[in-house]
C-alpha cells in the first residue's frame, strides 16, 4: 500500500500530499495502537490492585458483610434412627432445595438400609432412597433385624476435608457448618478423598466440590434445613448446640448418643440415637 502511494507521489504533486497524509495516518494509527496496548497492559496489571485498594476503602467505611453475627450459634443435628421410615422425602427435598443433580450418584443426604441376616449385614441404598425403598423380598424370612440410617455431612469439628484443601476453599464457618467456596474451589477432589463419611462429590454442573451445607441459606433466614422440615416423622432434629435449653441439647441429654466413626477423632456434630454397632 505504502509502496504504491510512494510511486504515485513521484507522478503528481497532488498525490504527494495524499501519500504523506496516508503515511501520517498509518503511523499515527500504529502509535495509537501501541499506546492503547500499553495502557491496556498497565490497566490489566493494576486492576486487581486497584480493586483491592477500593475494597479495602469500602471495608473501612461500611461494615460489609451485612451485620450478621456468624459466631452466635453452633449448629448441629440429631438423628433418631428409630423414627426413620426410609420414605426418602428428605433426599428429594435436599435435591430440590439445593439443585443437586438428579443422577443416582450425587447426594448431599441419602438413606441407607441395614439388613442383618445372622452374622451378615447387607447395606443397600437404591438411588440413595430418592424413590423410597423396594421390599426386602430376598431372604426376608431369615431377616433378623433391619433399619434405616439417614446420612449427611457430619459437620466435623476437626474436619479432614478442611485440613486437606490446598486453597482454603473448604472451611468451617464460625457457627459450625462446613462449606465450600465455589469461587475458589479448584476441583482437585482432595476433600472428596479425605472425607471419611463419603459425603462429598464433584458437582458436574459447577465443576467444584459440593456437599451438605446444613442448608446454610435456610438456617440463616430463620428456617430449618429442607431435610428436617420435610421429614414426616421428625427423625431429624436441627438445632443450636450453644442453646443449652434448646431442643437439640435436650434431645442429646435424653437419649443415648453415638457418632459415626468416633475413632477417627473428627468430632461430628451430627448425633445419632438408636444406632446399631454395624453402622459406620
Amino acid at each position: 500500500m505504502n509502496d504504491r502511494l510512494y510511486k504515485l507521489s513521484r507522478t503528481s504533486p497532488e498525490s504527494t500530499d495524499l501519500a504523506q497524509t496516508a503515511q501520517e495516518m498509518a503511523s499515527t494509527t500504529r502509535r495509537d495502537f501501541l499506546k492503547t496496548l500499553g495502557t491496556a497492559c498497565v490497566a490489566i496489571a493494576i486492576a486487581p490492585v486497584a480493586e483491592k485498594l477500593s475494597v479495602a476503602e469500602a471495608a473501612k467505611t461500611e461494615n460489609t458483610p451485612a451485620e450478621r453475627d456468624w459466631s452466635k450459634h453452633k449448629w448441629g443435628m440429631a438423628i433418631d434412627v428409630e423414627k426413620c421410615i426410609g420414605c426418602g422425602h428428605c433426599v428429594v427435598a435436599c435435591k430440590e432445595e439445593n439443585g443437586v443433580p438428579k443422577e443416582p450418584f450425587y447426594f448431599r443426604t441419602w438413606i441407607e438400609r441395614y439388613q442383618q441376616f445372622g452374622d451378615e449385614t447387607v447395606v443397600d441404598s437404591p438411588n440413595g432412597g430418592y424413590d423410597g425403598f423396594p421390599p426386602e423380598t430376598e431372604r426376608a424370612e431369615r431377616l433378623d433385624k433391619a433399619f434405616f440410617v439417614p446420612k449427611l455431612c457430619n459437620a466435623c469439628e476437626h474436619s479432614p476435608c478442611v485440613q486437606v484443601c490446598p486453597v482454603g476453599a473448604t472451611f468451617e464457618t464460625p457457627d459450625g457448618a462446613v462449606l465450600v467456596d465455589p469461587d475458589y474451589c479448584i476441583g482437585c477432589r482432595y476433600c472428596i478423598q479425605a472425607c471419611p463419611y463419603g459425603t462429598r462429590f464433584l458437582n458436574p454442573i459447577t465443576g467444584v466440590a459440593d456437599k451438605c451445607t446444613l442448608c446454610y441459606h435456610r438456617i440463616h433466614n430463620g428456617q430449618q434445613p429442607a431435610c428436617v422440615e420435610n421429614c414426616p416423622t421428625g427423625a431429624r432434629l436441627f438445632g443450636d448446640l450453644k442453646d443449652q435449653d434448646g431442643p437439640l441439647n435436650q434431645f442429646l441429654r435424653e437419649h443415648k448418643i453415638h457418632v459415626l466413626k468416633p475413632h477417627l477423632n473428627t468430632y461430628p456434630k451430627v448425633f445419632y440415637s438408636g444406632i446399631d454397632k454395624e453402622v459406620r
Partner: protein
Amino acid sequence: MPPQVSRLIYIFATIVLAFVATRWWLQPDSFGQYGHYRGKALPAAVAHDPSYVPKTSCADCHEDEAAEHAAGPHRKVSCQICHGPGATHIEDPQTTNIRKPDVAAACLRCHEQRAARPARFPQIVEADHAGGKACNSCHTVHNPSETE
C-alpha cells in the same frame, strides 16, 4: 561488605519481595476475615432464596385444606412433602407450578410395609388392605384418619 555476600542478600530480598507481592496480589481481599478462607463466601452462601417456603405459608390461602390437615394425624407433616417446593407457587399462584401428587404412590411411600420401618409406625400390605382400590376412595386425603 564483600560483594559476593551483598549480592546474595539482594537476590534473597528480591525473592522475598516477589513472594510477598504475588501473595498480596493473588489473595482474595476478604481472606482471613474469619479464618483461613475468604470471608465473603459466608454472605454468598446465604444469599439465595429457599425453594421450600415456611410450613405455615400454605394456610394463608388454603384455609380449608389447612384446617382439615391440622385436625388429622398428619398435622405435623409439611404440605410440601406431597406437593413439592412452593416458592414459585407463592410468587405466582398457578395450578401448574405446584405438584398434584399421585395419591396411591404418596401414601404407600411411607405406609407400605417394610421390615426396616419401625414396628410402631402404621404400615399396610397394600394388596391385603385395599385390594388395589385407590387410597382416597376410603380415606380423605388431607385427614386420612377419616374414612368416607
